[in-house]
């Protein structure tokens, strides 16, 4: 196996990024073609890696950037879980973004930074050491900022400012944590969990708090979630891919790496750090849902829903049990495809019909049935109705709660599902059962290539939500892959 494969996989989006920056606006068609081709190429590469990792072959690329500090890119099963998600959704979101913006001005910059974000997210997934992770994590912050402020209005600039303050402060805390830990154990390599036995418990606890707190900013754990609803000022494709998938997942992914690959579940449970984190995650789940209930803007409602849903992943990890772990890990994928569906639908509704507020949704199902059908699948998945993917996550999390003797988790899950239903079902009711208000001109949803490119990506991801739920037992389904990860490493 070629050792440069990980390097290629991470830096592949750099090529379309540079090309996007360089091409003048009149050659936008070429930019689109190149962006889609590279997204396809990356997906093919990921497919190849999935097969080889299933066979038990992991590849690794190392570079000693400073004596005693390795820069490692590694394709392990856990990394591929995140990479497959991001590569698939990158392709979808690229097609969607092209249709969403049409031939607007100043898109070169948008697609350039969009590609850099994907590069950073892939790097986050494949990082083999804590410092490598930090490098890509910061790159993700930097590359997202121009996308958040893309519109250039006062609201976006404010969102960009808040985003930077939160995330940079978070990564500073994380950096402090890993440097502190490194001063005890040397290089923190994920594949070779460091020996923490000689470190005082208090220090270990403080380092854990610094790291999880720092990473929790991007994962939108309360009280560090404030940036996420603000960031909804960004255009819909940014909210869809980055805020639903790349950025928040980078934070959640980092927390999972911390728990499983740096501390190890034994140390975490030995230090008694699991329960407080589980409580914090549960609080975030409920708080996010409550706030979502109160929003009148669709995107804001979805944003608070993200705050809530991402914490399922952290809840799963903090319960320290096989079922909970599987539920949390699989939710990393399931939440991604469900939330991107919802955001892409919201963007399509705003783009075609000018619908931004919940109250405007009346009768939208008749005007844009495909979009609303996809939205409905995503929403029902979020609530956790079988056979959607969301049901699988919640099922395993609930089992995990029982297994870890934390019955309250089941109550939290039930309460959250109820809240999910309360804030999603009225949307579906309005869209499908109420008559359209007179103000909307008729919309032909699938007329022309542009409109199809706007609507079909959401339809595809909605279908994926169903497939991931229905065929969860098949090989290469998110669930099977997560069970493979759990069996290979984390349960030992």
């Amino acid at each position, binding site marked *: 196996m070629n050792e440069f494969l990980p390097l290629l996989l991470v830096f592949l989006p750099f090529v379309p990024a540079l090309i996007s920056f360089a091409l003048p606006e009149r050659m936008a068609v070429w930019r689109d073609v190149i962006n889609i081709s590279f997204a396809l190429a990356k997906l093919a590469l990921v497919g190849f890696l999935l097969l080889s990792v299933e066979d038990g072959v992991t590849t690794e690329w190392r570079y000693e950037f*400073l004596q005693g500090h390795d820069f490692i890119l590694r394709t392990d099963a856990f990394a591929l879980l995140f990479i497959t998600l991001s590569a698939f959704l990158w392709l979808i979101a690229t097609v969607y973004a092209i249709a969403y913006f049409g031939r607007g*001005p100043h898109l070169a910059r948008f697609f350039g930074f969009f590609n850099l974000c994907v590069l950073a997210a892939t790097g986050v997934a494949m990082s083999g050491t804590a410092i490598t992770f930090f490098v890509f994590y*910061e*790159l993700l912050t930097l590359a997202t900022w*121009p996308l958040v402020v893309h519109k*250039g209005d006062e609201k976006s600039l404010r969102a960009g400012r808040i985003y930077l303050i939160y995330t940079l402060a978070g990564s500073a805390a994380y950096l402090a944590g890993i440097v502190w830990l490194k001063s005890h154990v040397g290089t923190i390599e994920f594949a070779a969990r460091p020996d923490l036995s000689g470190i005082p418990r208090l220090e270990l606890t403080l380092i854990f708090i610094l790291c999880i707190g720092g990473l929790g900013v991007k994962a939108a754990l309360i009280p560090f979630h404030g940036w996420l609803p603000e960031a909804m000022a960004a255009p819909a494709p940014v909210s869809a891919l980055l805020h639903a998938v790349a950025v928040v997942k980078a934070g959640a992914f980092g927390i999972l790496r911390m728990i499983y690959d740096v501390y190890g579940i034994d140390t975490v449970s030995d230090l008694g750090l699991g329960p407080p984190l589980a409580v914090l995650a549960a609080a975030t789940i409920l708080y996010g849902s409550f706030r979502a209930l109160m929003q009148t803007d669709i995107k804001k409602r979805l944003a608070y829903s993200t705050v809530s849903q991402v914490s399922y992943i952290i809840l799963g990890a903090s319960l320290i049990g096989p079922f909970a772990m599987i539920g949390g890990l699989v939710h990393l994928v399931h939440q991604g495809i469900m939330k991107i569906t919802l955001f892409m639908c919201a963007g399509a509704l705003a783009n075609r019909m000018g619908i931004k507020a919940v109250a405007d949704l009346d009768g939208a199902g008749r005007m844009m049935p495909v979009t609303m059908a996809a939205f409905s699948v995503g929403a029902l998945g979020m609530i956790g109705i079988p056979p959607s993917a969301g049901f699988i996550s919640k099922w395993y999390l609930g089992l995990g709660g029982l297994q870890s003797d934390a019955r309250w988790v089941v109550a939290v899950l039930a309460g959250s599902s109820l809240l999910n239903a309360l804030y999603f079902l009225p949307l579906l009711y309005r869209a499908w059962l109420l008559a359209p208000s007179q103000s909307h001109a008729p919309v032909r949803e699938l007329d022309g290539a542009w409109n199809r490119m706007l609507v079909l990506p959401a339809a595809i991801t909605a279908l994926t939500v169903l497939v991931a739920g229905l065929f969860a037992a098949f090989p290469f389904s998110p669930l099977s892959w997560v069970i493979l990860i759990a069996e290979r490493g984390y349960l030992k």
Partner: protein
Amino acid sequence: MSPLDLLVAAPLAFMIAALLSGPWGRWWLLAAIPVMAGLTVWLLLLPEGSGHVVGGWTLPLGVQLRADGVAQLMVAATAVCAAIVGLYALHEFAPGADRSETAHGFAFWPLFYLLWGGANAGFLTTDLFNLYIALEMVSLAAVAMAAMGSLRAALRYFVIALVGSLAYLLGVALLFSNYATVDLTLLAEMARPDLATKTALAVMTAGLLIKAAVFPLHGWLPPAHAAAPAPASALLSAIVVKVGFVILLRLWFEAFPAIIAPAGLELLGWLGALAVLYGSVQAIRQDTLKALVAYSTVAQIGYLLLAFPLVATAAGTGGAWAGMTIHATAHMLAKAAMFLAAGLMLKAVNGHHLKDLHGLARAMPLTVAAFGLAAVSLMGLPPSAGFLAKFLLLEAAVEQGAVFAAAVLLVGGLLAAVYLFKPLAWAFAGSDTPVVVAKAPLRTAAPLALALLAVSLGFAGQAMVDITAGSPWAGPPATEAEDVQ
């Protein structure tokens, strides 16, 4: 002949040539760049700790030039900065339509070479009196360059710089009367902790702190650096303050490490921490772009001082030492890039304020990109040389349990993000494309090249660490300098 002499002599020769050739003086740059590049490569290839006594006089009578790690790194970075800033300045400092423009076009080039030669002398010399001369050469050139922007600021700079020089000279005189030598390497062997030595060290340090614009002696820097023309500001912020800093290093860590009290190091560390915080807060408060960048220099110099106690405690392990010198290099490149980019942007919109940059990212994407990349390095974010420096310093601070220093490093980075993203946010604001007057678009390449270098050096970490390790007090002591005539 040795590259050590030539690195000082060649710029001075070019200075005379530029003086003599009048309106064509600026074109000497095209000869100077290859010559200096060759000499710099030669310097980098010299074996570790190579020394050379000028004119064949042996110490203590002669004057020794020596290529240790810090000198190699700083001379190389200076050469890169000066060459690129020079190319940028070719257009700006040319004979022009009116008298004052033409006068600036004539005056800039000899000053430019004087500064370059003086800086090289400052980095390479081990003789304290010769260092005084280097310091004066650099200060003279710097004051004259500052005067091109604002006579008032330059006069203030001149007076304060004079005080600094006199303080330093007083110290040199004290040392000479005490030890009958002013060579650093010899002083290191016979340093005694007596009152005269301590007084000398104190006044010299005070003088150098002025020259390096360390808080609270930084007052002259912001007005002078903000008012000067962009290439001059770039040279002042990138190179001039570093000369004072390197001499300070030589005094504290090479000549008198034995008699330095920990309290002294702590004091410098505190000054550095205050400089980081004060400079950053002031930068946040500015609403003109060049003043913001100038205050950022005050803050960034603070990190160098903050590292002093860390370097002293680390004693030979090299991490803190490498972090400090890499920070000086990274700041040189990034700050020069930032001033040049700022100059281009402000010229294009014909304004000074942050709000004048409105929407500029669409009109001048490459210039804004250069500014942004330089900002990444200054904030200490990866991947950049600035990050490498901050990481090494942070690691040293954590290992030594210096919690306060670690906190300042982290908070300073955040504050830098606050002030540096302010102009960037203005550049991204709005959705229209402002119409700008962009003269000589090729000049954009200068800040971009410097910024890309500052960022990409982040990938060459070990190489830089290896170079800086070749300093007498960073690794195993090399008392006898080898002659490489």
